[in-house]
Every structure is written in structure tokens, then in C-alpha cells.
């Protein structure tokens, strides 16, 4: 069995996000980037399957600038067998990404396409479902556990009401949620060896994908600042203040 995993370079979750002064986006220059944490969970899952003998090849794919090669190197250090870098300097909208992933999936013919449930930069949660739709494959999103069989998978999903269990036929797109697993620490020797592995390179052009212009981003603004609180001296004052704001 072959598993394809998507990997996105995103601003690290520890970074305090700054908005560009002209509102055209967030500051990315000189800011720490790492693998989208949900993709890390997806990679970890694929490698666990490989270690358990459930699949025999894991291929990582990213779409992004040259620097995104770093995240592919991490995927290789996790234990992925191959890595494909679809290079583009332009920001990629979910539909474009889905188009690229469809083309890659058609070339690679995996049984499972694992993706993070969302990327923590734009939080769109669209690429997985769109890829499944373009491929005409079943999808199971927000997976918190996956049992793999030869031609189907039983996926437990985290939904608002609790847990939902689905059986999907393979090939399928499955997106990972936080509780699926806890990614391992990368071992330095594996990182060192991953540096020397080849990365296959491709482009939107080569894959015949035209960048979608479905969305236009108008403005990026920070959330409104919380006004500083007031200290009240007594219960009466508190009640008065609440009334003043029509909260009582």
C-alpha cells in the first residue's frame, strides 16, 4: 500500500503574528516557519503504518517556495521514502492546492491521501475535501483514529456531538485531527541523512494546473484590542456599572 501525505510550510505556532502596516497580510519575513502541526500528525501516522507493515511506501508532497524544501526534509527525517516539491512563489489558494494534489494523486496512485485537517495559517479546512471532490474519492475528515484494512479504512471523527465512526473505501482522502497521535522527536542522525536524500521537483505548469483566483483577500487586520478593565471598589459599584452597560 502506498500513502501520500501533504505537508505545508506555515508560520510556527509559537510565533506572535504581526500584521503588515498596510494591511496586505501578515509579516512572514524573518519569521519562524515549520511544518503545519496537523500535517506533522499525518506524517507521523503514515510512518507508524509503515513501521507496522501496513504500508510500504510513504510519499510527502508540498506546494510552496524554495524554503518549503525544509519541511520536506523534516518529512524525510520522519521516515518518508520520497518527497515531491511543487514549487511556486505565489500564495496558493485551497482550490489550486487541491488541483495540484489531484494531479499528484493521479501520478502516484496512493491508496490513502493523508492531510492535516487544516493549515494553521489560513485555517480554511478546504484543501482535503476539495481534493477528494476533484478526484471523486470518498473522504473522512477530522480523524482521531484510523484503522486501516486492505481496501477500506474505519475512521473515527471528532464532531461537535462526540465521535462519529465511518467506513470509507480506498482510495480515500483522510484528514487528521489533533488527537490522532503525538508526533515523535526527530532524531538528529535521521535529519542528517535526510539532508542527503533527493527531492523531486515539479511545478503548477508541469502538472497542468492553473492557479485559481476564486478568492480575493481584501484586508488583514488584528483582532480588536481588549479594553483595559476597571477596578470596582464595592458590590454596589459593580451592579451600577453592569446596569450602565445594560448587562443587568
Amino acid at each position: 500500500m502506498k500513502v501520500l501525505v501533504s505537508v505545508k510550510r506555515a508560520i510556527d505556532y509559537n510565533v506572535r503574528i504581526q500584521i503588515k502596516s498596510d494591511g496586505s497580510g501578515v509579516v512572514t519575513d524573518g519569521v519562524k516557519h515549520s511544518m503545519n502541526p496537523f500535517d506533522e500528525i499525518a506524517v507521523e501516522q503514515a510512518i507508524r503504518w509503515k513501521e507496522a507493515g501496513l504500508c510500504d511506501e510513504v510519499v510527502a508532497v508540498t506546494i510552496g517556495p524554495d524554503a518549503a524544501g525544509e519541511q520536506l526534509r523534516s518529512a524525510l527525517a520522519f521516515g518518508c521514502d520520497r518527497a515531491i516539491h511543487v514549487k511556486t512563489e505565489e500564495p496558493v489558494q485551497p482550490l489550486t492546492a487541491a488541483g495540484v494534489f489531484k494531479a499528484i494523486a493521479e501520478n502516484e496512485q496512493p491508496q490513502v491521501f493523508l492531510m492535516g485537517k487544516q493549515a494553521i495559517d489560513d485555517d480554511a479546512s478546504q484543501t482535503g475535501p476539495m481534493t477528494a471532490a476533484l478526484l471523486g474519492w470518498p473522504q473522512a475528515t477530522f480523524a482521531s483514529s484510523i484503522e486501516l484494512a486492505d481496501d477500506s479504512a474505519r475512521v473515527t471523527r471528532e464532531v461537535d456531538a462526540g465521535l462519529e465512526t465511518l467506513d470509507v473505501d480506498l482510495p480515500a482522502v483522510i484528514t487528521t485531527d489533533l488527537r490522532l497521535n503525538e508526533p515523535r522527536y526527530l532524531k538528529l542522525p535521521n535529519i542528517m541523512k535526510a539532508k542527503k536524500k533527493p527531492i523531486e521537483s515539479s511545478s503548477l505548469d508541469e502538472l497542468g494546473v492553473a492557479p485559481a483566483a476564486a478568492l480575493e483577500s481584501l484586508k488583514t487586520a488584528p483582532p480588536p484590542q481588549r479594553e483595559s478593565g476597571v477596578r470596582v471598589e464595592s458590590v454596589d459599584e459593580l451592579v451600577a456599572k453592569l446596569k450602565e452597560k445594560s448587562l443587568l
Partner: protein
Amino acid sequence: MSEPIERDVMAYDVLVVGAGPAGLAAAMRIKQNAPDTEVCVLEKASEVGAHNLAGAVVETGPLDELVPDWRDDPPAICVDAADDEFWMLHQDGSRRLPTPPQQNNHGNVIVSVGNLMSWLAPKAEALGVEIYPGFSAAEALFDEAGAVRGVRTPDMGLDRAGQPKNGFTPGIEIHAPVTLFAEGCRGNCSKQLIQHFELDRHSDPQTYGIGLKELWKVPESQCRPGLIQHTIGWPLDDDTYGGGFVYHLDDNRIAIGFVVGLDYADPRLRPFEAFQQFKHHPRIKPMLEGGEIISAGARALVEGGWQSLPKTEMPGAVILGDAAGTLNVPKIKGIHTAMRSGMIAADHLHAHGTADGFDAALRASTVGAELKKVRNIRPGFNKGKWVGLLNAGWETITKGASPWTLSNHADWQATRRLDDLDSPTPEDAQGYVDRDLPPRDRLASVYFAQTEHDEDQPVHLQVLDTSICIERCTHEYGNPCTRFCPANVYEMVENETGQAELKINAANCVHCKTCDIKDPYQIINWVVPEGGSGPNYYNL
């Protein structure tokens, strides 16, 4: 743990510890000299540049040599130095002084050292240098003959009690015929090696300062790109060495910082608070008002200079840059000398194939000459600000030709006991003002350092005997760790039984190393936490 751990071993031709100015310059030069040499650089920050902090006005000589066409594609922060100003601050006024010649910055550039490093790293990688951020050197290792054979990286995945958790990954050993320790000020392996080989046997003790810094974005009219301002005086008293800096960048950004010599005598002094007071001085505050903090942090710097420079070579290894102590204090510049020391080491290895003889080469170089020339200026301030300034004038006029060399003493020994102090607290004596500029306090400042440590790992600030804190330090020195730590890591709290206890909030630590240096009993040992932990400085 009881059983010895099986560790993987990786081997390289040269191992470099630390991807700062010294380490990266050395690694690049090695590759330029001999492209086939396999060079591995370990960096404890999660990304190159994320633990580096400086002013920073830089002399570009070494960079011009290393990357001759660097001006075609300069780092994102790089502003030509314009005017230099030197101010003496009083409680409510200020006086402009002539700029000391060492601080004439014509021809220099203002950068962020963190940004400079993250810009330089891909250039090093393009030369074939392998850089591994997120992996630190926990300790140096020795071979049977006693020579340094490399380092061990820390174990990952231990819990607070030191027991392996799920996913425990033992550290590995990295071996190389030569290891270059470029860990910066008070490097943990460098400290180990200086003790192990008694490298400081013939030099004075190293001395230090603590530097605190913030990067601000300010309203348009408040920033004059290229302006370099230095201050001495308030809020420090005449006996305490230190001062402030304000470097005006482009894009309405201002780098502001404050340095306090760690030989300060009054254990009640709080360097972080002194920095915040400095920001509220009428000469400084108008530049910041209406602005916001982008990033903040702290880092110790070496001040001992020539007479405190330990021997920088030992079998199988050398110590570079500020890990040895190559900073030029009167210039407040160490980036060019750190880089130069790395390049000298690379050339020395290329010519001789061994660390032997590096120490002499370094001392005979421009780095040695520069440090020797200014050697008496900093210790002149041990007798207070005025004697210091007069002495600095003399040493400058005579170009360091005085037949004497003033000596340095360990900073922690300068701390006076509380019962030996009859002066009012620094707050009262210096007339500290109410503050309204951010950050509110040290914890609010740590937020801007974006520091990050997994809480469930062994505490990386080892206090060898916490009973001393309670039984002696509280009444002898008033627990100065709770004051000098810029990140509020140390707190004296009451435990359930109502007894005083030292609480260590290790997760806040910004790796400045001040506690390791200034603790009056020398019982705090800073060890490396899990790789990748620590601050995530942005453009400091």
C-alpha cells in the same frame, strides 16, 4: 537513569557549536578554504538567529571578506550609520558629551544580529555547511588521550523528574578531530572546558554585563534612520557601570537597550527595572510614546577583554568569539571580532590541520591588538564613573600604551552583603519614576521574547543546594536571583507548610546566562534544556 544509554555516533571533519557570528564565519571560511571538509554546526535555537541578541552596530570588515558582494543583497535590517550622540543622563535632565572615538560609527551599519545570522545561514548552507538548529551541545566529550573528541546532544523526552516519557529519544554523540566552541557569552560547554583544562589559569576572571533590549515600532516622526545614541548615568549610580543605547532603524523601528555591568555591588538592583526607568527618561521617552514593542529579550555579554581572555585552544578544540571573550567593550562591539576569530581558526586549521597554535595566532591578530589597546578602559570604571571616564580619556589618548594592565575580578564577588549597605535602595536613591510604557513587568516582557520550553522536562537551571537560598542568601543578599533574572524565573514563595522556598519557573528562561554568572554563591548551573527550547527572538 541506571543503565547506560546506547547512543548513535555521527562523525564529521569539523564540528562547530553555535551558529552565531563566530560559528557561522568559521564554518563558511572552512568551506571556502577546503570545500570537501564536512562541517556540522549545532545551534540550540529552534532556528538560526532566534537566540542571538545584540545592538547592533557592526564593523563590516570580516563580512566584506567572507561575502564580498553582500551589499548587493543585504540583510533585511541594514541601515547605514549616520550621526553618533553620547549623552549623560541625570534624573531629570541630560547633557550631550563629546562622542568617545571608539564610538564613532562612520562607515558601520546597524543590523539585527539575529536577522544577520538567519540571512547568513543559507549562504553557509550554499557552501555545503550543514546546520542543525534545534540541537544543542549538552557537554563536551573526551577521548582516551584526554583530547576533546566532540559533544553529546541532550536527551529528548525526559519528564520533570528525569524519567523517560513516551517518545524518549536519547541524545547522540558527534565526533570530530576538531571542535570549535562558538557558544557566545558563558557557553555551557566552554565553561566546562575552561574548568576542565584550567584554561583561565593565567588570565584574570572573566567579567560580564547583562544587556536588555526591545525592538519598537514608533510613530513616523520619532525615528531618524541611522542615528546612534548612547547614554551613561541615570538611573544607575556613579559606581555602577552601564548605560543605554538607542539605534534608529528604517521603517519606523527603534532598537533600544540597556547594559549593566554585572560587577554591580548592590544586590537590590534590578537591571530590568533600570532599563525600564531609562526608557522613561525625558530624553528617551518621547521617541517611544505611541509606539509598540515588537520583540524583547536579554543576553549577557563579556566585558573582561584582553586580561580575561582564557587560553583559547586545547587538544582537539578551540574556543571562539564571546565564548572566549573577544568583545571590545569601549566600542560595545563583539560581532566583528567574533567573526574574525572564527575566520582565523578556519585559516589556522587549513594551514596546520590542528588546533595547536591557534591561541598564539588569535593573540597576534587584529583581534588581539584591538583588545590589548583598550584593555584598561573597562576596569578603570571599577573606581566609579568619573575616574572611569578620565582613565578612558587617558587610555584613548595614549592608545593603550600605559605600561600597566588593570586587573579584573569576578563579578559575583563584587556583590555586597545587605548588612554592609547603608545606602537607600536604588529606587529611592535614583528617584525611580512611575512607568506607563509597556511592558508592565518582566512576565509581560517574556511574552515578547516568545520563549518556549516544554514544562515537563528536567529543570535546566540547576541550583546545587537550595537550602543556601533560604538559610543564607535571604538575609545575606536578599535573593538577588529574583531581581537580576530578566525573565522572572526565580521566585521566593511559601510552600504548603508555610516555609520559604525557591520556585524556578524554568519555562520562562531566555538563556541570558546572568544567573550562572552573578549568583553570589556560584551554585546556579545553567544546563541546556531540550533542543529548540528557549526564546524565539524576532529581529533582536
